[in-house]
């Protein structure tokens, strides 16, 4: 879960990492007032949960009053990769002598925490890492190991810091690392870490992502107003609806509605449809052991999607049982009704019971099942995928 720059910066401050004396504002009026009070020139930074805001025009240096009056409303009207700008940070303009990159993240390959530093900060850091890997320093540590001052000194010297600046760097590096460990972070980055013309190190930007799965032990973040949120990207109305219902869902540009069980086959089923010449309309994950009600809602999302021509269902019951699956489908059929052809297969845990539920309901009301073809273990999933592609082509 990504934090806003101003939230990350507040945490930086608590860990004694020097930050600009900026202020967050929530409206154009407040922005103008604060900028005038603090005095120009100022840097106005849009607060959005995505990268690339600089390129998108979300950061403006304002030198004069007329500029200020012009820039503020423009920033508040911006939408960056689908994120509307609702807050600005009003920062001092730093007199920059050098820029560095300093970050901490997780090296999953080697199961380590890794501190990364580069003497050339800014947006080109990834390019530098590719073309001149020797310019990047990586220090790997176990998750329960501290970063000592002497580790920080080693990094600082790699950044060609010396004297007082090297001493300033020590608590920045150890503070950033301690912050990372304290809050179960996945990423903390200072890019750029600025050395000002008068010799002060200051974290000019602050980026931080924490592990959603560890939020239960960080009540203080919740108290700061940092609540569960999407990592990044614009959401379609349907994606927003799905999120409200707690269903991981992504719109794609095809016409086959994917109703899979589990994220694994969710991803693979998408490939299968492509292999057989079709295109899925969505990606969806039921989560482990979904309730019948939740399954019914997943079907509602697909049935009401005008791009969907046919629904492709697949369930291999593990922790999610086939009887619950059948019940969910039945709730959908009875309460909402199916307006499109659906082809599906289910097998695995409690599949006989699922089958029994379907057969009984069909006997009672054959109309409900008029648009459904259902299969069990006897039919390979590849065949079902091909059938879905064929049906979608027929509808056209």
């Amino acid at each position, binding site marked *: 879960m990504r934090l806003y720059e101003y939230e990350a910066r507040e945490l930086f401050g608590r860990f004694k990492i020097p930050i600009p004396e900026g202020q967050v504002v929530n409206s154009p009026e407040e922005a103008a007032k604060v900028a005038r009070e603090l005095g120009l020139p100022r840097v106005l930074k849009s607060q959005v949960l995505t*990268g690339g805001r600089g390129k998108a025009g979300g950061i403006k240096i304002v030198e004069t009053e007329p500029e200020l009056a012009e820039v503020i409303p423009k920033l508040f009207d911006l939408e960056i990769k689908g994120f509307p700008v609702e807050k600005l940070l009003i920062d001092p303009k730093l007199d920059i002598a050098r820029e560095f990159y300093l*970050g*901490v*993240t*997780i*090296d*999953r*390959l080697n*199961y380590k*925490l*890794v501190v*990364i530093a580069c003497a050339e900060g800014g947006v080109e*850091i*990834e390019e530098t*890492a590719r073309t001149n890997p020797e310019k*990047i320093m*990586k220090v790997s540590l*176990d*998750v*329960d190991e501290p970063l000592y001052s002497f580790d920080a000194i080693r990094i600082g010297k790699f950044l060609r810091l010396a004297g007082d600046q090297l001493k300033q760097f020590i608590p920045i590096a150890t503070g950033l690392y301690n912050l990372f460990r304290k809050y*179960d972070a*996945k*990423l903390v*980055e200072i890019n750029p870490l600025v050395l000002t013309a008068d010799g002060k190190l200051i974290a000019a930007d602050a980026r931080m*992502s924490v*592990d*959603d*799965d*560890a939020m*239960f*032990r960080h009540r203080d973040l919740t108290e700061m107003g940092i609540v569960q949120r999407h*990592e990044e*990207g614009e959401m379609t109305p349907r994606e927003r609806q799905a999120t409200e219902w707690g269903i991981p869902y*992504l719109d794609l540009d095809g016409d086959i509605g994917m109703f*899979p*069980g*589990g994220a*694994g*086959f969710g*991803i*693979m089923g*998408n*490939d*299968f449809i*492509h*292999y057989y010449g079709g295109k899925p309309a969505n*990606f969806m994950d039921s989560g*482990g052991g979904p309730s019948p009600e939740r399954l019914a809602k997943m079907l509602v999302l697909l049935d009401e999607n005008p791009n969907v021509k046919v629904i492709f269902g697949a369930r*291999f*019951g*593990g*922790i999610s049982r086939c009887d619950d699956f059948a019940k969910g489908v039945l709730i959908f059929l009875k309460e909402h009704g199916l307006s499109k052809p659906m082809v599906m297969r289910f*097998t*695995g*845990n409690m*599949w006989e019971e699922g089958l029994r539920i379907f057969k009984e309901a069909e006997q009672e009301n054959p109309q409900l099942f008029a648009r459904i073809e259902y299969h069990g*273990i006897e039919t*390979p*999933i*590849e065949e079902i995928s091909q059938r879905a592609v064929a049906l979608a082509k027929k509808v056209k």
Partner: protein
Amino acid sequence: MAILVDKNSRVLVQGITGGAGSFHTKRMLAYGTNIVCGTSPGKGGQTVEGKPVYDSVEECVKEQGADTSVIFLPARFVKEAAIEAIRAGIKFVVVVPEHIPIHDMLLVRKEAMKYDVTVIGGNTAGIITPGEANLGIIPDIAFKPGRVGTVSRSGSLTYYVADTLTSSGYGETTCVGLGGDPVLGSTFDEILLKFEDDDATKAVVMVGEIGGVYEERAKDTIARMKTPVIVMIGGVFAPPGKRMGHAGAIVEGSMGTAESKLKVLEEAGAHRARTFLDMPRILEKLGV
């Protein structure tokens, strides 16, 4: 033969008195899994499905000779439960719960390495050695004893692969679910090496997917293996995942895409399957 579990494994269930724990204990026992006991602090002395409950893993090892553990506990308790099992002398730990905090899993991994213990998961469906033992939440319908090993990050794909291998007559030695969490107790290469050492396993099917770096880690192992490896990677047509900051790109480079995974694994000698039905075709060609 099999890897990691068989009928002689003495299995303990951590969290046996909970809803999921007791439900799946019954299922696992019904399959014939040799569950000897379970733990639930404060409930020592009770029984679940006729098996004794203890307050600690230490007692399970001492009193019942447990050597294998399946964890059914809320995610926040997994770190200590896994470390408890590791330190008590358990040699194989299956972490079924999902959403284990990443920092916790890093620590569990460190302890596991120190004590030479294999941990799979979190968020794994489990592991099954058909006809011998079924640990976790795997439905047994698709599995039959045979000669192909499987290893996958996804539960559902494990079932589909086994279904295919079973219906095409190959059957399975052991099927391992690595788990779906971002940081895992074991990696593909580690499980592949165990299959390589298993005489009964004539080929291995490895199923990966977009994201993460554990598929790429397997390339050197596959290159050195005598047992043939079939690889299937999901997400060839998926929208590319987002990188986490610059740091993510610096640490993981180009790893994580389906292309990157397929490229390095095919270069290492793995045979690519696009669909499940490709698998028996490849096995036949390989003369397995």
